[in-house]
């Protein structure tokens, strides 16, 4: 924010100050009681102090604004604002002043001056003011290059420049993790860490899904009409704090039809993050497109379309399986059902399911019962492709809670 003095041969002086938001002055309350030696003196001093809150002098945070005291840090996504002042230090009128402010980054050079026209003349003790704004889009060294050219009284053309170098730092660390649900849903956990040195209010952290998905944010606990954030009342992040955001992505129906076909790398979307710091200093970032490797399902995918949470002991219940042909060829399937220690399938094992062309699926209602209480894993389905004589085993397809409905009566 400070500036070197221009070498004295120049008639104009260029000064630059970064305009971060002003800060609120805090005072330091020292009080005493009437019976103490100073009596009301301390109280009086505090009441006379213009920076205290009248009527509540012991409140530390005042209302007096103070200008930024140093350059501070600047982070990617924030707006770099700067005051540029060119002052005529001499006692002569200077003509044709052109002030140019450029920002040089590692990849490009941007012109930030509001106007590019020359000022016809500048009287002694006057100045040309400009406030520039630029949203910072690159990390690393930035150089503000201010160039001033002017003509003296005697027609001499002069020129000087100043460089102001600053580093743009990364404000956030974002990590993501995908969880594939048994259905086609994908859950995205995003860990966002504040790696600046000041608290950060997260105004918006949203997932902009790609065209294939619909997204549900899971960061609110809805109670009645008003949702409450899972992060509590205060939506700010202290330095080095991390917060986890959770999103649920569902393929849109038109894509869901082809769910079995979603293979390999898919684009999920990108996170859009807006934060604010001191007195509303704003920053915004987006992550690059988040990509996810769709889980491989092999040739045949077996998923569950319907299954009860809780079932009664030794009572049959129904589930609906969805069998999708993920391979490139038509299959002729045969279903085998093997009982496990707790799971007993009802119906005939080894029945033909018929032909299934690529990307086609069929829904298969099945009935089974459990002979053991507790959380039971449904296992024991075998599908055999009679064309290739290849058998696919499906164990641990889902879990179901088995309870004894008579427990309460008997005990």
């Amino acid at each position, binding site marked *: 924010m400070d500036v070197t003095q221009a070498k004295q041969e120049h008639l104009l002086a260029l000064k630059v100050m970064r305009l971060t938001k002003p800060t609120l002055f805090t005072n330091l309350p020292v009080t005493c009681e009437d019976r103490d030696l100073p009596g009301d003196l301390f109280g009086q001093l505090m009441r006379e102090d213009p920076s205290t809150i009248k009527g509540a002098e012991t409140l530390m945070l005042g209302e007096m604004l103070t200008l930024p005291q140093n350059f501070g840090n600047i982070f990617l996504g924030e707006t770099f604002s700067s005051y540029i002042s060119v002052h005529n230090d001499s006692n002569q009128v200077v003509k044709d002043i052109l002030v140019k402010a450029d920002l040089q980054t590692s990849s490009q050079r941007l012109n930030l001056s509001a106007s590019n026209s020359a000022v016809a003349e500048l009287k002694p003790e006057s100045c040309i003011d400009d406030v520039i704004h630029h949203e910072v889009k690159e990390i690393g060294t930035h150089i503000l290059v201010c160039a001033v050219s002017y003509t003296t009284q005697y027609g001499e053309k002069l020129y000087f420049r100043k*460089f102001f170098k600053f580093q743009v730092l990364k404000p956030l660390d974002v990590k993501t993790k995908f969880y594939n649900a048994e259905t086609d849903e994908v859950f995205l956990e995003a860990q966002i860490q504040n790696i600046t040195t000041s608290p950060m209010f997260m105004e918006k952290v949203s997932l902009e899904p790609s065209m294939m998905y619909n997204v549900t944010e899971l960061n609110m606990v809805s109670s009645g009409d008003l949702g409450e954030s899972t992060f509590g009342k205060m939506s700010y992040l202290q330095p080095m704090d991390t917060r986890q955001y959770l999103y649920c992505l569902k393929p849109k129906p038109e894509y869901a039809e082809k769910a079995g076909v979603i293979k390999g790398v898919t684009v999920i979307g990108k996170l859009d993050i807006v934060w604010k710091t*001191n007195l509303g200093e704003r920053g915004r970032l987006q992550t690059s497109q988040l990509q996810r490797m769709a889980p491989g399902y092999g040739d045949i995918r077996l998923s569950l379309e319907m299954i009860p949470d809780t079932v009664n002991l030794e009572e049959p219940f129904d589930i609906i399986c969805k069998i999708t042909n993920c391979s490139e060829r038509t299959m002729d399937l045969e279903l085998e059902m093997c009982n496990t220690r707790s799971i007993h399938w009802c119906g005939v094992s080894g029945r033909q399911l018929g032909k299934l062309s690529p990307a086609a699926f069929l829904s298969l209602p099945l009935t089974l019962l459990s002979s053991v209480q507790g959380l039971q894993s449904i296992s024991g389905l075998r599908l055999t492709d009679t064309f290739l004589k290849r058998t696919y085993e499906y164990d641990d397809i889902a879990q179901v809670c088995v309870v004894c409905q008579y427990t309460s009566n008997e005990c």
Partner: protein
Amino acid sequence: MESGDAAAQRPVTLDITVEDVKTDAPVSPEPTSLQIPSRDLVLPTEDSIDLGGGEFASPQEVSIATPSESLMEKLNEQMMESVMISDSPLNSEENDVAPIDSFLDGEEEEEKEDDDEEEERENAGEISGDKQELSETGPTITTLQVPVEGHEGGASEEEVEEDTKEQTDSQEDAVAFFSPLVDTQDPQIDLQSEDPATEEASGMSPKHKPLPVCTIFSHGTHPKSLVPDGFQPTLIKSPSFSMGSGGGGDDAVTPTKLTAPLVCQPSPSLSKFFTDNGQTNPATDFFDSFTAPSDFISVSNPNAEIPPGASPAPIAPTPERQLSSTSSSISSAAGPLDSDTPTLITVFGPVPTETTTKTQPPTPQIVPAPTAPPASVPTTLPQPFNQLQAVFSGNDDPFATALSLSEVDRRHDAWQPSEETRKVLISVATQQFSPAFVETSKLTMPGLKFDNLQGDAVKDLMLRFLGEQAAMKRQVLNSNSVEQSFTGLKQLITSKNWRAAVDLTGRLLTAHGQGYGKAGQPTSHTTDSLQLWFVRLALLIKLNLFQNAELEFEPFGNLDHPDLYYEYYPTVYPGRRGSMLPFSMRLLHAELPQYLAKPQEALDRLHTLKTVCLAIVENLEKGLAEDGTMITLTPENRQASLKLWQSRLSRVMYSMANCLLLMKDYVLAVETYSSIIQYEPHQRVQLLSGIGRIFLQIGDVQTAEGYFQDVERACQMKGSQSSHITCMLMNRAFVHLSQNNYGEAHASFTEVLKIDPKNPVANNNAAVCLLYLGHLKESLGQLEGLVQQDPALYLHESVLFNLTTMYELESSRSTQKKQALLEAVACREGDSFNTQCLKLV
């Protein structure tokens, strides 16, 4: 662009091969000419300024990039992957790896190397990371850093860099002023930097500096002339002392109504000492010998060094041996109170006869022990009545006084000592003395830890910038120019000469026997001596001299020693109970650590205070006395007591909230401020606004607006006072400000000025908004005008800081303008003025 001709003067032009075309960012329409060949950089017309931030080694990069780290992460959470943040949304879509523009060949080599290294590491990290590193493919990532490689030839910008670094440094100095709360080093620096300057100012060698211990001489600027003839035997005493002793027939004490400059003489025992070497030796000798046994090095006074031969006396062992010496020093000033009552002798002197022999070599002078008590006998009357009078000055009948005050006393002094202390106090009350009883570790033995603040930073600056003549014109009260009494002290405080006031408290305490180097020596306390300590420590904190305050607070321990309670002095304060230590001092003690970067400790202490306050309030509500005893109180007394303790409770809560705010624990701070509303309903508007501002500080504008709406509702309920309208307008202005709408914010502040033209906050804030709107001259004009018209309101450090910042922005001649400010300050402000806001140095 017309600058083409100017640019043409520069020899080399590098052209950018690909200028990326963006819709949002302003790009120069023509191929930008880059005229920065390295040899250009040595030309005098070019300055480069490193705006800092370079030193930030971006720790985050390490976390992503270092292979080992990422490996660790892989181990811990298999699927967690780091995502590169692309630049801002607008940029991310159409991304282009712009060719490196070899601008600034002159960049610091080292830095580049660092960058390269970092990149390499990063690349390595990402590659080794795993195949799942999907984000790597994101189109935007590469733009950030990769292009930088290789293109930088080392060039000679370093000279320029260095130049500018100096400047940035000095600028940082100026800036440091605003962080006193955080910067614990500050006070120390303060002191040290001031002292030499003071010496210059007074034109004395350090050896001849007036020292508080050795009395106060009337000559003000020429304390060198230590002519003993001029002495008038005067004790330095508080008014209460002198009046009390007057009643007691103490002739040795002259009334303190002497016109200033007052001549003071050390108390009897000291004067005896004084005659030994006082005539020939400058005061320092006396002082040195005095301070020798101390193991504390004075922060400020160069005279206070420990002589090489003298072994610093550990605190614990000395007191026992120097008991008699202490009793002599007690008798010197506090003599009327406690010196000779037989009980006290037993208390303090388990070995009254064993004295000088065991003391350290440098101290024998102070320990004329056996003679000291007798010497003080004539000046003191051991009757308790007399002592009481000394405490409650100006009352004819001590008994009546005691009775009439007892209600108020009990109310204010109530406190809950710890169990251990309580036992000691009970045993004192029941007269169960035993030699083992006096454990010095359980006593408070304070002493000044540094002696002389006596600086006037304003004057020093004047000497430096305006010359001696101008500096001579500065007239402020100092500790010599006021009455050496509480009255003088108050005068100094009111005139904002807090440094001088601290000095004066030092003298008064020295007279009480708790002077420099007396820490660790047994002493006794009176209401007045503790009040003096309170004022001294409060002023030190007001002066931001937190470390000094901490040093001097240290002997007080946790403020629960038995000798800080009235019960400990049954003869001096018969029948009086409770804490002799003022509540305000407990609060001060609790608040202090937060300014020394130990907020947790401050919170602990504040919670202890809160617990006691709550307990007392509860007692009162249950119909008991403050301390839980079954004394019946009249309804009025109970009401008054409840009111007092609730106000104390809310004061403690305020401190806790302030401390939490300093800790940036906004959740708890807001909660605490909210809970104060129930105790101080009349401060509802201010508190809610304050909470709103906290949210603005965090950046949560929406929640802030919610609170501001509550404020408006509260205002409407209370009817439209102008102060409330002001408050509402201010809040609106702050919201506009937070929405980057400086124009509206300015309008709101101006609106406030229509109602309250003299509102300093609105005036200052409006000027600040003007600057953000690009109207530097207007803004400056407004602030300057204010400072000239109404210096009483606007010579405030925040305003001056803004003003000097704008001066710096305006022209290269800011120093002259700042000097003019200094002159304005010199006419009005006392020695406590914080000169850093002038940014002259």
